[in-house]
């Protein structure tokens, strides 16, 4: 192969250089025209909520690729709010100053409330991925929407699922004890339980509600107290670390209830829980919103999660990942419809959301006048073979529920 040097003139070299520059610059020009929505995702990646916060973070990491496949374009800024509402507040200010057009977060209600105040002042929409405190949508914020049930909704939907569970398994519990963490989330659940349980029509009596310190070294005293009351069911609102302590002490004290059920709280389906307890982690039930295995969005999300996060199981993380993804999807969808990232316009589009295809089980995502999605149903998820498995409602279930749970003895 030879090169004809005679063809290289000064003009042709200049023209070639110019053409090359245009070609090299093209992606940048294309990027500028793409108009991605810049979203700051604030999560507790460190601090006492880090375990769940990092799970949500993994959801945020895999979301852009999935959203892109569905025709949405987002640019994410990942921020650690350190499980600290004050940090959440200052980091939100900083994110907005640096150009964030929308905020998603923040798993923790206290942190989310701090973010909401800043978003309201700066007129930047906040989409709550996870956060159950009722006041988030009861304080009249104009720049907030929440695609997550309130504590009351979680309890109500959870209790409804427990009734379905009793019907499906034909057990006859007479008494239950409600054990909950003494934190924002736990107290919201307690309030919901106190208000809703008396009218829920369940066939058992709630003999006592016990609040525990989530920072306690162990739950032996709490379990001794429960053992003294000898209830048929133990209803729990825990985080993963507390759930481990609880089951460990229940087994040590040889207490055998019919079932341990969470009426809408995390803890019983975390990888940490399975690793710590092995076969003793099985048969506990969470009545909680869950990812819809039959949704094409969930399937795409799961495929991308497996690709990007091979060290983690989507089955364990789909609650955090699914709700975080759906929050980002809601933002991207509103941006697409609004055609602008201006706060008030984007907020208007958010309030008009009607999104049928999403990750979590439930009807299309819509928000009421307060910015709350009031149609987020729960499902029953039972640990089977150390994997959270949907056992109710029947149309999305992959196994049938088992109650009373098998005895502890013989499982280890």
């Amino acid at each position, binding site marked *: 192969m030879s090169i004809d040097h005679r063809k290289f003139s000064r003009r042709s070299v200049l023209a070639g250089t110019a053409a090359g520059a245009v070609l090299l610059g093209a992606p940048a020009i294309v990027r500028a025209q793409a108009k991605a929505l810049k979203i700051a995702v604030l999560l507790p990646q460190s601090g006492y909520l880090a375990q769940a916060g990092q799970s949500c973070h993994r959801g945020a990491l895999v979301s852009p690729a999935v959203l892109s496949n569905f025709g949405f374009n987002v640019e994410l800024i990942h921020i650690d709010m350190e499980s600290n509402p004050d940090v959440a507040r200052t980091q939100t200010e900083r994110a907005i100053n640096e150009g964030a057009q929308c905020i998603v977060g923040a798993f923790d209600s206290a942190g989310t409330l701090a973010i909401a105040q800043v978003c309201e002042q700066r007129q930047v929409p906040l989409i709550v991925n996870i956060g159950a405190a009722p006041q988030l949508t009861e304080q009249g914020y104009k720049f907030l929407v929440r695609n997550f049930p309130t504590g009351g909704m979680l309890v109500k939907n959870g209790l409804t699922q427990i009734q379905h569970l009793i019907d499906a398994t034909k057990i006859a519990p007479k008494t239950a004890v409600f054990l909950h963490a003494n934190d924002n989330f736990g107290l919201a659940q307690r309030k919901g339980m106190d208000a809703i349980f008396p009218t829920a029509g369940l066939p058992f009596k709630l003999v006592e509600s016990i*609040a525990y310190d989530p*920072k306690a070294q162990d739950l032996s005293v709490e379990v001794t107290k429960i053992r003294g009351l000898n209830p048929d069911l133990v209803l729990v609102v825990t985080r993963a670390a507390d759930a481990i302590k609880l089951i460990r002490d229940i087994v040590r004290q040889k207490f055998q209830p019919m079932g341990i059920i969470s009426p809408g709280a995390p803890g019983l389906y975390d990888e940490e829980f399975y690793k710590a307890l092995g076969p003793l982690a099985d048969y506990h039930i969470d009545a909680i919103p869950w990812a819809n295995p039959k949704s094409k969005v969930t399937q795409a999300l799961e495929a991308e999660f497996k690709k990007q996060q091979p060290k983690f199981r989507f089955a364990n993380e789909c609650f955090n990942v699914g709700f975080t993804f759906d929050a980002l999807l809601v933002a991207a969808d509103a941006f697409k419809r609004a055609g602008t990232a201006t706060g008030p316009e984007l907020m208007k589009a958010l309030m008009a959301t009607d999104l049928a295809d999403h990750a979590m089980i439930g009807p299309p995502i819509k928000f009421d006048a307060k910015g709350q999605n009031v149609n987020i149903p729960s499902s029953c998820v039972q640990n089977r073979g150390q994997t959270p498995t949907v056992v109710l409602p029947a149309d999305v279930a992959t196994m049938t529920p088992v109650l009373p749970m098998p005895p502890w003895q013989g499982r280890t």
Partner: protein
Amino acid sequence: MTAITLNVIVQGVLTGLVYGLMALGLSVIFGVMRVVNFAHGELTVVAMYAAFLLFEMLHLEPLIALLPIAAAFFGIGYLLQRTLISPFIGRAEHEQFILLVGLATVIVNGVLLIFGPDARPINLPYSFDSYAIGPLFIDKVRVLAAVAALAVAAALFLFFRYTRTGTAIRACADNLTGAAVVGLNVKQLYAVTFGLGLACVGAAGSLMATIADASPGLSQAYTLLAFTIVIIGGLGSMMGALVGGILIGVSEALAGFYIQPSMKSMFSFALLIIVLVLRPQGLMGRRL
């Protein structure tokens, strides 16, 4: 007294003994060097992770791993004192405070970076076993941990009482100038004392790992717990640390059972305030 109340008290005593061993390290260091180790809880958590690693990698049970961990922590303590703490001896208390709080921050973030936020459990074959004595159920791990804590505390008492080094350390604690005048190598003895304090932390961390799962989030709670115990028992009093630990263990257990578990800590602090008001030097401390 009902059987269930007795069960609660026994569990409280057993947990309190391990708490006491953890606080013992803090008390020894303060009693001799007058340095308050604000990284105490963080170092306890590091010991818990060490026990976790030895169990995962070498299948060494924490009750056995306690010995190498305590030895390693003695070495770490010795070096820490010689390199980092020693220049701050005799300097203003706030300078010591900043140094040790800085050390605590580095440790806890290092642990978070290496192990992540998840709790790391040690699943022993007998983790879920308990002794049934009549109507009482007593956790096997708690009994073993309490017995080991008592053994370590006894070994420390014997060391201070019957060895030349122990006697020399006590001399430094009683009269620093006098100890220096008679030719004791105070710097060396301080380093040994800090090493012994951390050896207690290492042993306590190993035992704690059988009761609670290792997690970076425990650090501050442990520091606060150790402080509460040694203030109640008497800063610098070894017996006081064990008595304080048992008192905290039992009062928390009873308050949790009879009032509300979420209010357990409130009773620890109420006990602390009562002791500070009625006997500021602590139950077994000497009047300052």
